[in-house]
């Protein structure tokens, strides 16, 4: 449930679902996000679900904080509703040209790269949110012994398709962008297709993701 609704500036609602980051709280955020999306509320022009917050932006010409707050507080959310999440497998190549930070990770986590890959590829991840750059999914949770901080100095250019890890999360760079996550591999799969007018995102909040290790040759010959 929403613990508190406050205003973020004069044209957005800040719905707070708590401090913790976990699947239960995030599923609540996603349920609210989907319900509000379905309602097509006058004046609402953007929704941003994240780990434990939901921001509802609106056009101040058409509605205001007080009216919208009341509307959202009284919204009925079906908790038993299935989130209709997809299961998606992402092929990843960990050739040394792609796993840019694997040496750093071996040092920081005091484990061999094979051990690290073993852990990563045998795990099921949950998509908490997408964004920052178009289509970038934020997936969790990595095991405690896989958690590292961001790079001290972020890269100016992280290659498109890079798989990064930081703290309890893993993400995928949907296009070349600056970034500070630890890069462990690269996927040939297109995660964000800007030519699609509808559903350009492959991965959406609530989806369940697994990674499958592929060889360099499989990467080269990948059909996408």
């Amino acid at each position, binding site marked *: 449930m929403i613990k508190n609704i*406050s*205003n*973020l*500036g*004069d*044209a*957005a609602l*800040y719905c707070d679902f708590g*401090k913790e*980051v976990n699947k239960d709280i995030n599923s609540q955020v996603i349920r609210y*996000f989907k319900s509000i999306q379905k309602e097509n509320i006058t004046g609402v*022009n*953007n*929704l*941003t*679900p*994240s*780990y*434990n*917050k*939901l*921001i509802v*932006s609106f056009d*101040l*010409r058409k509605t*205001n*904080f007080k009216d919208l707050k009341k509307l959202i507080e009284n919204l009925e959310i079906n908790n038993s509703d299935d989130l209709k999440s997809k299961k998606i497998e992402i092929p990843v190549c960990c050739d040394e040209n792609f796993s840019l930070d694997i040496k750093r990770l071996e040092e920081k986590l005091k484990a061999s790269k094979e051990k690290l890959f073993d852990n990563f590829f045998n795990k099921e991840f949950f998509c908490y*949110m*997408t*964004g*920052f*750059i*178009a*289509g*970038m999914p*934020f997936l969790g949770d990595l095991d405690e012994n896989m958690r590292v901080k961001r790079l001290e100095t972020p890269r100016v250019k992280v290659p498109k398709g890079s798989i990064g890890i930081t703290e309890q999360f893993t993400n995928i760079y*949907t*296009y070349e962008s600056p970034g500070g996550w630890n890069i462990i591999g690269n996927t040939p799969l297109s995660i*964000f297709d*800007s030519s699609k*007018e509808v559903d*350009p*995102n492959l991965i*959406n*909040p609530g989806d369940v993701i697994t990674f499958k290790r592929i060889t360099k040759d499989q990467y080269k010959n990948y059909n996408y």
Partner: protein
Amino acid sequence: MLLLLKELLKINIKITIIKNYFEVVRAGINTTFQDQGRKNLYHIGIPFSGAMDNRNYLLANKLVGNKSDLSVLEFAYQGPLLKYFGDKINIAITGDVNFTIKKNNDLINGNCYETFSLENGNEIDITSTNRSVYGYLAFSGEFDLKSQWSSYSVNTKANIGSNDGKKLQVNQKINIFKINQNLKDKKLNYINTKIENIRVIKGTNFHYFSDQGKKIFFEKEFIVSKLSDRMGMRLEGSKIENIINTNIKSEGLIKGVIQVPADGNPIIMLSDHGTIGGYPKIGVVISADYDKLVQLIPGSKIKFKEVELSSAETLFRLYDLETQNLISQI
């Protein structure tokens, strides 16, 4: 063979229909097509974009008799030099801009908020904005562009929008169709006012900052840094001290949010901002001040002034009424 013939025929038809276009002789520093932006895509990581200074965008379209949601050319600092070919067309420039129009051997000094006609072979040279960042150029017609997610707005960092998500390029030709049949001369008496005081509502992490930090935020002057663009405006000044945590769990952003990263220097999110961020939010610029904020050039001094939500709502209503009033005067 038949298919090839058909294709050739199609191309031929296109050539005969489109006869109005401009050629880019000089592209300018950051010239992009912009309209009202795209909605309901934050959740997949796509910001609004759209014209930075919405009032001047609306006025440009109204002056040339366009619908209010057509795309215009937005330029920053130095604008483009364009050569026009085709039937007589009207243009208007809004903002605070120096420009000239070359008709055969005549060089005319242009005025903002006034329509000028262009005829075959005429040139428009937008030399500079005057102590402001953005200006707008509207043609009385529609550009032949492809929209993306219901908007023509270009976001160059994400390569999204019309013109392949890119700035205007030198030697490019942009076709114009549907020229308004009824070209009227229009003029509006309006001067952009500059502001130093930016009004803000306290942010959701205001309590993350020390008493001294809060005091600095509302009492000291900040300088707009050179590292400012359509994504964000970086400020320099006294450092704002954080006493809780310099990171928060990443969450949504909106334009106008003022984040303070670990270095203590505020950054204001602007129209092309990343949709998610992990720095504490000290404040949010009120909607009524956004158009004026984006026009502040590097080196400008700004001071933040706190307002309550109810005042911010009233101030926006007044600002919007003023905009509507200006539009109705055209």
